[in-house]
């Protein structure tokens, strides 16, 4: 990738292969000797965890697809048959359904880590933007996947989300409806919709895997950012990826799998909705149509806007905004560890996302302490956009950052006079 290769083949065979296909060299340079900042903390283990999650979803998904029937009349029963008749089908399906939530939990922690330590700033803008693309693909994949069991929430979730496109009618009459009909392959969500969603649900994870490849490729050019947000200056600042980070990632991955297993075996329906164990019925609308937890903040923004088209634009804007972050942040230092003011707004932003998620989970007319939640959601939406479009550029200009340590090595190896603890 970048820099000089330190690979020297150890056997005649690996030398033979390396001269014809430098795969051993590639593996050595990217996964073994790759110089990695020595001060990466627990929040930097989520990249490996996410790769694991993608692998788990693809493997369990392929097995599920062997037994699943993408037909509106048979899909629900085929999932129940996986749960009851297929050997360990319950295990594969619960890993897959819980895995979606564990995947999103990890991706959110990964993204918040990037935001906190300024990992999107030059020269890592493209890593961040590719990451936003992965996130978008993940949301699409998760949405298609949620439709497949063909329960009540599958059906009505699909109806609500695809109907968002009909709001385009307000700009070009009939265009939105035409797009919706095209997406459905019918005049309502039905068998044709289910079939194409299944096809896309099978396709997108492999596209995600490809884009993840780009994400890691782009990462390996400048190398990792780190909690101090300062550049690597000497070999003393880094350690080889293996064994230092392979063992650290393995340990934290194992803890994450432990949490994963607790949900799979002891609360497999924790992230689900009871209504989705009710077969899809176009004639009965569930009292509340709620998306999965990982989409709730965006759902809250959508509902906070009384005008449908503007609501849809706000929803889209909330995600598109993420692409511009590398240029919205005007700060000279990367890490919030040295940004006393931004640090506070960052945590307020994290809380804001949780509040939006809560608002999205509640009924549309819900009230909290006498305040309609829709107003809380509106405030939350305002802060979400304000954080990126106002606070990020302005605070970067007015804030005085704390002094940065001279180097990573100095910060880690002592000289406590200048280095912050941690």
């Amino acid at each position, binding site marked *: 990738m970048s820099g000089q290769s330190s690979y020297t083949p150890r056997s005649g065979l690996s030398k033979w292969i390396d001269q014809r296909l430098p795969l051993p060299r590639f593996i050595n340079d990217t996964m073994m000797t790759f110089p990695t900042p020595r001060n990466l903390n627990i929040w930097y283990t989520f990249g490996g965890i996410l790769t694991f999650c993608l692998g788990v979803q693809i493997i369990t998904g392929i097995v599920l697809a062997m037994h699943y029937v993408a037909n509106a009349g048979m899909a629900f029963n085929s999932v129940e048959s996986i749960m*009851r008749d297929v050997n360990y089908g319950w295990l594969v399906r619960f890993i897959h359904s819980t895995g979606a939530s564990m995947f999103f939990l990890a991706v959110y922690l990964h993204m918040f880590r990037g935001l906190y330590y300024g990992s999107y700033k030059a020269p890592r803008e493209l890593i961040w933007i590719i990451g936003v693309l992965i996130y978008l693909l993940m949301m699409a994949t998760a949405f298609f996947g949620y439709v497949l069991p063909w329960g009540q929430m599958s059906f009505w979730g699909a109806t609500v989300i695809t109907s968002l496109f009909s709001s385009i009618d307000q700009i070009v009459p009939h265009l939105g409806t035409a797009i919706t009909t095209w997406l459905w392959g019918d005049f309502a969500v039905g068998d044709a919709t289910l079939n194409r969603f299944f096809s896309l649900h099978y396709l997108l994870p492999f596209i995600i895997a490809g884009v993840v490849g780009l994400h890691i490729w782009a990462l390996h050019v400048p190398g990792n950012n780190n909690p101090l947000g300062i550049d690597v200056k000497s070999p003393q600042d880094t350690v080889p990826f293996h064994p230092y980070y392979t063992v650290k990632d393995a*340990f934290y991955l194992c803890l994450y*799998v432990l949490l994963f297993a607790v949900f799979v075996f002891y609360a497999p329906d924790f992230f689900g909705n009871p209504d989705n164990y009710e077969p899809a019925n176009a004639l009965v609308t569930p009292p509340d149509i709620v998306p999965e937890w990982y989409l709730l903040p965006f759902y809250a923004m959508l509902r906070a806007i009384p005008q449908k088209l503007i609501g849809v634009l706000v929803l889209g804007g909330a995600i598109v905004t993420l692409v511009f972050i590398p240029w919205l942040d005007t700060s000279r230092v990367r890490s919030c560890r040295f940004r006393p003011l931004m640090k506070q707004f960052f945590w307020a932003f994290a809380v804001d996302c949780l509040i939006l998620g809560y608002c999205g989970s509640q009924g549309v007319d819900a009230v909290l302490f006498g305040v309609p939640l829709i107003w809380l959601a509106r405030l939350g939406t305002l802060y979400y956009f304000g954080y990126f479009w106002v606070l990020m550029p302005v605070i970067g200009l007015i804030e005085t950052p704390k002094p940065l340590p001279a180097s990573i090595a100095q910060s880690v190896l002592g000289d406590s006079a200048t280095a912050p603890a941690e």
Partner: protein
Amino acid sequence: MRFVTKIILAGLVMAPVAAFAQTAPAISTTRLAPKHEEFAFEGPFGTYDRGALQRGFQVYKEVCSACHNLDHIAFHNMYEPGGPGFTEAQAKAIAAGYQIPADPNDKGETMDEKGVRLTRAGTLADHFPPPFPNEEAARANNSGALPPDLSMIVKARAGGPQYVYSIITGFSAKPPAGFKVTEGKYFNPYFEGWNISMPPPLVANAVTYSDGTKATIEQQAHDVTVFLSWASDPKMEERKRTGLGVLIFLVVLSGLLFLSYRKVWANMH
């Protein structure tokens, strides 16, 4: 809070009625929180009580199955591990007690000369046959209401087993003043809207338990809820047992990885 919309919807439905009758302060017909019934299968080590499963099956068979399907349960499930614990011979006998629509006979007929559907005895491979041939027949026999399939009911309702138990034991309470039960419906405050189409299903001693357990309404309700919980989640015992092994393995592996991590990084700080 998800009930808030339901109240509004109920309100919208009730509003014209209320305006017409000019009566009564508005009553919130949001369902009550389910009763706190405890079940042996709850918790990380919980298992189904075999006695309760078998008694519960009896209640399903003699009472519920008159109207409710048990679509996802096959007769061979009745002797599978983690289930009611019948023997294979008992499961065969249970299956043989049901009549299943037969395949066309040698002459290609599916009806006898009187036009009655030909049937055969159930086998282990069959699922429990529905009480009505189709949804329309089910509605026609139940004043327009469709009795839901019970093999998923515990998973398909918020509140799970406690909800199901509360519904079938929730008929005894008298409606509060000002609430009028809809014609042809029954009062049940654990059901959303309080009007339920199902008549009180259980009567004390309507079933006779062969193990001598006293068949109170509460006992029958508890037993059938255990049976239906199993029907919704027949792999629960296998799942929890496997989970314990997986967790022990992962804890040990985490410990080993932590020690490796400490050793590798020992000289780095």
